[in-house]
């Protein structure tokens, strides 16, 4: 009796909620885009790789902002920590294996996430935003001061990743870096899809809506958010490490307020609370920036501004969020 009930329930569940379906579609979209990018812009892989690194940062930001409701303008701290860790491992310790560098990046990102989470989660709303701003400035100043380690404002150079699994060199064409990036993005995306629909992901969504209610269910919002911050740090660390490996240089900009703000803009542009939104926002923003700034660098800021205003006015849930809402409404109407 019970068993039939359960099966019954599972078959009843709407198709889109079914486990696995969305993930496969998502992964195939990413891989398809990656292949299209490879063949459409075979000579522009360096920029595509950079987009992937930033996409990882935006995904990471989505975890805390989109899924947990934490307002932060300092998320690049996690990205920069990953980038510097991977870079320093190579430049100062001669750890040139890309996978080992990646591991350093992930750990450093997670640690930075722990530190940032411990501070940022102490307030809400506007003061929270300001805490994050103060933090990113502290990180930035710290990296500037520790110039014997980080190269300060001259940037950390001398990063020399060896061939990936001993076979593929990171060359001028940027193919290895690109494929490496695509694989990382696909892996991270798949993992995050699992996490956001896991019990923990559900808990975080609930915390975003009402942390008091969650406390009365016996769960600690703070502990859950800290955990998410660490995960988010690891993801941003992947992005940072990828950036360090592919460009072989790390600059203070990777720990900057500007980068934090830009990543937030990209996220809101695509739509918060959805991994696809994060990816959409990154790709659209970076392409827009690339095209407009190549066409007319002197006025691209005006156009980006206009784009942002237009998005708020006409696609308030972000590009992906609004599109998804329209599709859902259509489906319901049928």
């Amino acid at each position, binding site marked *: 009796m*019970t*068993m039939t*009930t*359960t099966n*019954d*329930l*599972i078959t*009843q*569940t*709407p198709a889109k*909620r*079914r*486990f696995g379906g969305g993930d496969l579609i998502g992964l195939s979209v990413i891989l398809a885009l990656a292949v299209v990018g490879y063949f459409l812009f075979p000579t522009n892989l360096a920029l595509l790789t950079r987009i992937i690194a930033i996409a990882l940062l935006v995904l990471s930001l989505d975890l805390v902002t989109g899924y947990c409701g934490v307002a932060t303008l300092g998320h690049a701290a996690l990205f920069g920590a990953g980038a510097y860790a991977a870079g320093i491992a190579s430049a100062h310790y001669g750890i040139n294996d890309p996978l080992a560098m990646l591991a350093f990046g992930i750990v450093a990102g997670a640690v930075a996430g722990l530190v940032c989470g411990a501070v940022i989660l102490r307030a809400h709303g506007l003061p929270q935003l300001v805490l994050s701003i103060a933090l990113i400035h502290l990180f930035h100043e710290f990296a500037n001061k520790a110039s014997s380690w980080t190269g300060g404002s001259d940037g950390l150079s001398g990063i020399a990743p060896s061939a990936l699994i001993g076979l593929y060199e990171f060359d001028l064409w940027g193919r290895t870096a690109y494929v490496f990036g695509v694989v990382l993005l696909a892996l991270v995306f798949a993992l995050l899809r*699992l*996490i956001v*629909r*896991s*019990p*923990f992901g*559900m*808990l975080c*969504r*609930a915390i975003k*809506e*009402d942390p*008091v*209610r969650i*406390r*009365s*269910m*016996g*769960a*600690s919002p703070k502990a*859950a958010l800290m*955990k998410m911050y660490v*995960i988010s740090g690891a993801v941003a660390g992947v992005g940072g490490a990828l950036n360090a490996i592919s460009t072989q240089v790390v600059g203070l900009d990777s720990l900057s307020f500007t980068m934090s703000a830009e990543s937030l803009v990209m996220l809101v542009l695509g739509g918060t609370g959805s991994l696809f939104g994060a990816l959409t926002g990154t790709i659209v923003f970076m392409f827009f920036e690339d095209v407009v700034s190549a066409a007319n660098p002197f006025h691209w800021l005006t156009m980006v501004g206009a784009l942002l205003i237009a998005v708020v006015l006409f696609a308030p849930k972000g590009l992906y969020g609004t599109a998804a809402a329209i599709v859902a409404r259509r489906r319901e109407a049928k």
Partner: protein
Amino acid sequence: MQPVFEVRNLKRAFGGLAVTNDVSLSMAPGDRVALIGPNGAGKTTFVNLVTGNLAPDSGEVRLGGETVTGIDAIGRVRRGLVRSFQVTRLFLDMTPAEHVALAVLQRDGRSGRLFGNFLSMPDVMDEVGQLLGKLGLRELMHRKVSEIAYGQQRLLEIAVALALKPKVLLLDEPAAGVPQSDTGRIEQALADLPADLAVLMIEHDMDLVFRFAKRVVVLAAGAIIFDGSPSDVTQDPRVREAYLGSYANASHAA
């Protein structure tokens, strides 16, 4: 029987005003107690002291024989003291199934798991289905909470509380704001609560109190002025003076 829930000499003052003044209360498993009192009697403060959202100036809260006064709200929930909210506090973007599943997973210490989805966890879905079925919410289990009726949301509040398998359940006006037509379902749900569960219900609706409670506690000006059977409460002169008078006035106004 050994009390599952006990409050001893609980005191809390704001400024010079004693909002909870030397309150003691004890409940055994299976008890059905109604806590009533006029507006401003200190019910909210009392609830907050009991749940751990507010620290008492002195006194003790005991749960299953253990002192929990020094334990925070989350710890008390984990020890079996669960409350529902007077105004529903549900996650509007989530489904009833998700609500109950979250509570079940939380209770089992599985809410931090990073992999898997409750929809594919047969034991969780089983419990979710049973609980929601019992409360008549099964058809709606995959709708968003923002799309279901208020009465159904109140039932869901109860379902979430039950999913946590509490020893002591604090129901804060479970029928508040529910249209007359739907109160039957809620009363039925209350009647179906597990027999060994100690329930403390805070309620204004005297009809509901008389139908539900085996025992009534009256709180006025921060102190318990009556603790006894429903049939005696209306006879008690102090209650008549302190409570029913104002209640009558209130119902006039409404």
